[in-house]
């Protein structure tokens, strides 16, 4: 009984954090001479007020979810990956190159009669290429951490800068759209052929309206909703199983929780550190390549750091934390942040409040969620230390890494 209550109290802070963040944001809105209630109403409309709004929210959520899954793996492995942006770009560059090159290839005659088979191969190769390049880029930070003790927070931030400049260089050079060359020189690649694009999808529902009469509804028709979302949700489930049902995931989590006990148990700690960063980078890479294949159909940037990614590499971190460092939890969290971003645009249009306010809201949520994590940690520590033992012969528990531990509530079930 008390345990259940405690669990509830442990979870409440996340919601309270959200409410507090919105309250502080209200103050900012008031300072901008906007009515917060009106502003939030427009946000809600913009995010979920119509079929198209909802689709746009999910479109925005897709890369955030990919990154969020990766960040979850990294966090569980004890690595703080701030390099989602760079890894997204690395993945997108590799993926778009594969897609462009394969798009130019002639369909092999043996596949020609199977309609769409070669298309599928192009898309799959591009996704794998994007995953691998992002994974190598993330794995690099893991390698530096494991063998040279380079702080992964710093190295991933640095690698973000390198990736942005590399993208600018390539998009103005060999990857530049031939149609643009010598003309506008807007940094973008050529448009992908249709075969290399991720298809859009809609949902068909048959609703019984009256007896004997059925209404046919096609949800999300003519929206930009694409297969990337389905892939991301599928992978979230896979990664949940991976982390909590396989020995590979067990090792990652063990290293993340306690490196000393892991090496005592014979786990290769360095390898696990690299592996979790490799996977994290891979998922960010997927986010990048899916943006290209499913949405933009070309890689383009305005030259600014977030010109291509739309800061999904950072928003993914927030979503991972908000999702309780659980890939399944990252799904609603990503949808929520996608909705915030889309809703903010509506708010900007209607009220003239800058949409960048939503960046502040994101930041506030991070601050409150992280402090609520610390609150949870201290609560559980107090419970434990009091409940079990009062002798100082027990070793004091090590300080939790970076204070960003998750509450593991509810992750294990039957």
């Amino acid at each position, binding site marked *: 009984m*008390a345990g259940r209550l405690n669990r509830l109290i442990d979870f409440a802070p996340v919601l309270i954090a959200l409410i507090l963040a919105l309250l502080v944001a209200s103050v900012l809105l008031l300072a901008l001479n906007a009515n917060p209630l009106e502003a939030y109403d427009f946000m809600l409309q913009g995010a979920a007020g119509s079929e198209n709004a909802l689709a746009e929210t999910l479109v925005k959520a897709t890369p955030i979810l990919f990154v969020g899954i990766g960040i979850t793996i990294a966090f569980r492995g004890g690595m703080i990956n701030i390099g989602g942006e760079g890894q997204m770009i690395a993945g997108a560059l590799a993926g778009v190159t594969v897609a462009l090159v394969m798009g130019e290839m002639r369909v092999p005659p043996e596949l020609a009669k199977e309609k769409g088979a070669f298309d599928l191969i192009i898309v799959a190769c591009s996704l794998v290429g994007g995953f691998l390049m992002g994974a190598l880029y993330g794995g690099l930070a893991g390698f530096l951490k494991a063998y040279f003790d380079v702080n992964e927070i710093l190295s991933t931030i640095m690698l973000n800068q390198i990736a942005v400049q590399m993208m600018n260089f390539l998009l103005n050079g060999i990857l530049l759209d031939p149609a643009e060359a010598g003309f506008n020189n807007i940094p973008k690649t050529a448009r992908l052929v249709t075969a290399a694009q991720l298809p859009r999808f809609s949902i068909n529902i048959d609703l019984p309206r009256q007896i004997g009469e059925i209404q046919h509804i096609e949800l999300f028709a003519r929206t930009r909703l694409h297969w990337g979302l389905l892939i991301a949700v599928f992978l979230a489930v896979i990664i949940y199983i991976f982390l909590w*049902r*396989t*020995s*590979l995931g*067990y*090792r990652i*989590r*063990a290293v993340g*929780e*306690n490196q*000393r*006990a*892991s*090496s*005592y*148990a*014979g*786990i*290769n700690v360095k390898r696990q550190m690299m592996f979790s960063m490799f996977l994290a980078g891979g998922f960010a890479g997927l986010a990048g390549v899916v943006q290209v294949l499913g949405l933009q159909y070309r890689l383009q940037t305005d030259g600014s750091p977030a010109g291509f990614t739309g800061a999904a590499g950072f928003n993914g971190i927030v979503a991972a934390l908000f999702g309780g460092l659980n890939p399944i939890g990252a799904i609603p969290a990503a949808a929520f942040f996608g909705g915030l971003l889309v809703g903010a645009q509506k708010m900007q249009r209607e009220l003239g409040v800058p949409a960048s306010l939503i960046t502040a809201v994101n930041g506030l949520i991070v601050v409150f969620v992280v402090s609520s994590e610390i609150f949870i940690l201290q609560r*559980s520590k*107090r*419970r*434990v230390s*009091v*409940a*079990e*033992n*009062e*002798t*100082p*012969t*027990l*070793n004091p*528990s*090590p300080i939790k890494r970076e204070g960003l*531990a998750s509450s*593991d509530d509810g992750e*294990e079930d039957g």
Partner: protein
Amino acid sequence: MAENAKQKSDLLPTGHAPINQLAMTGIVKRFPGVLAADGIDFDVKAGEIHALLGENGAGKSTLMKMLYGLYHPDAGQIRINGQETTIRNPQDAIQHGIGMIHQHFMLVPSLTVAENIALGMKSSRGARLDLDVVSGRVLELSEIYNLKVDPDLPIWQLAVGEQQRVEILRALYKGAALLILDEPTAVLTPQEVDGLFRILNQLADDGHGLVFISHKLHEVLEISHRVTVLRDGRRVNSIPTSEATRPKLAEMMVGRPVLLEYDKNPPDPRDERLILDGVSALSNRGTVGLDDVSLRLRGGEIVGIAGVSGNGQQELAQCICGLRPLTAGSVTVDGSDVSNAHPSSLNAIGLSHIPEERMLDGVIKEFSVAENYVLQDHGHPKFTRGKIFMLFHKIREFCRRAIETYEIKTPSTETLVKSLSGGNIQKLVLARELSRDPGVLIAAQPTRGVDIGATEYIHQRLLQERDNGTAILLISEDLDEIRALSDRIAVMYEGRIVGEVENRDVDIEHLGLLMTGGG
């Protein structure tokens, strides 16, 4: 020591008034979900050494922390010399003449004795330091109480026993009439314990009241005048020490009769299973940690490693278990050379290790009991499908069996280990290590911080394992434990083995000398 000898209202040798009678009545302290103190009565008189005995979590420290102002009672009264008193914080406690010596010393190693004592006190000269005044007073006090300490030596140059004397001096300097000592012998050698006991007796003779917190029965019997036993936050009984015996006290602590001495089968040594030959290694600080250590263990025997902590015991265990690189020498387990082998390959050839720092090394606190049970074997074919998918129903089943066999108190196999008590965590580690059917077992401080009931059980299991032919290396700071279990005893000092004796003809004085580098 007659406790009625000092009932006069004379001043103490420090010039402060004594506490003739301190009484705590009906003390209640609740923590979320736990009743840590449930109406405890406790009192100390001037000139009395009152032992507070109990298992871990019985409420000893909680009770004394309330007396020292670190916690506040939810109910109950504290009366000093008959006057009801509220102690809000340690400053209050010191004001009332109560001093506490913590188990872990609160001293700054780089500062001198006088500087440490002056720390946090007002100088008599305003902004200027008055260390010479402090030094003079320290010398005066150390003469009165026969506590020899040089006030101008830095703390790091002092032995542990001397550091403890500094702590006592500091409390006396601040005017303590009543001293609370929290497990003061835990870090001392037998010689240092004798020294401490002389000091405590003199303090009592001079009219101080003393509270001696301990879970070591023979020390309580030796030093105290009265014993109060706590169990589960309640006072079981208070009796004069003259009426107490070891079995009686143990039974009061645990709530059932406890075996204090074991009937060991005669040793039946078999083939050599663990051979250390000239092993050397560095310590964490890069100094010599292990220096040319050679040791041979046969199956079916327990070899105890005695020594004051920090003399290479930890390095020894880590070298054998592949957690610290050797700089010279070799380790052989069951005939195969495993010098500098990876822990995973040591797991495979049947080496088990109960690590000293079990909360850091032995378990992952955020993992469930079941997950911790397969810390090494999580990829074992027995527990996985295709070495990838973990079969949690099987893991839980094995874990449940271990929970039953080893009487581990846990609500379920899914409980997080961090919410288990220290003794139960140690049982879990023991269960896991023995379940792997080891040929060689390294048991480092297997019962440190574990209550008597669990200690008894762990000892029995280790003896059973010995009889089954396992070679056991028992590393312990607790000489009683070493004496009770070992067939042979090796003493470590400064990274070397300075002596090896058969347990049956061991002389405790000689052992103590070896432990401090003499002999």
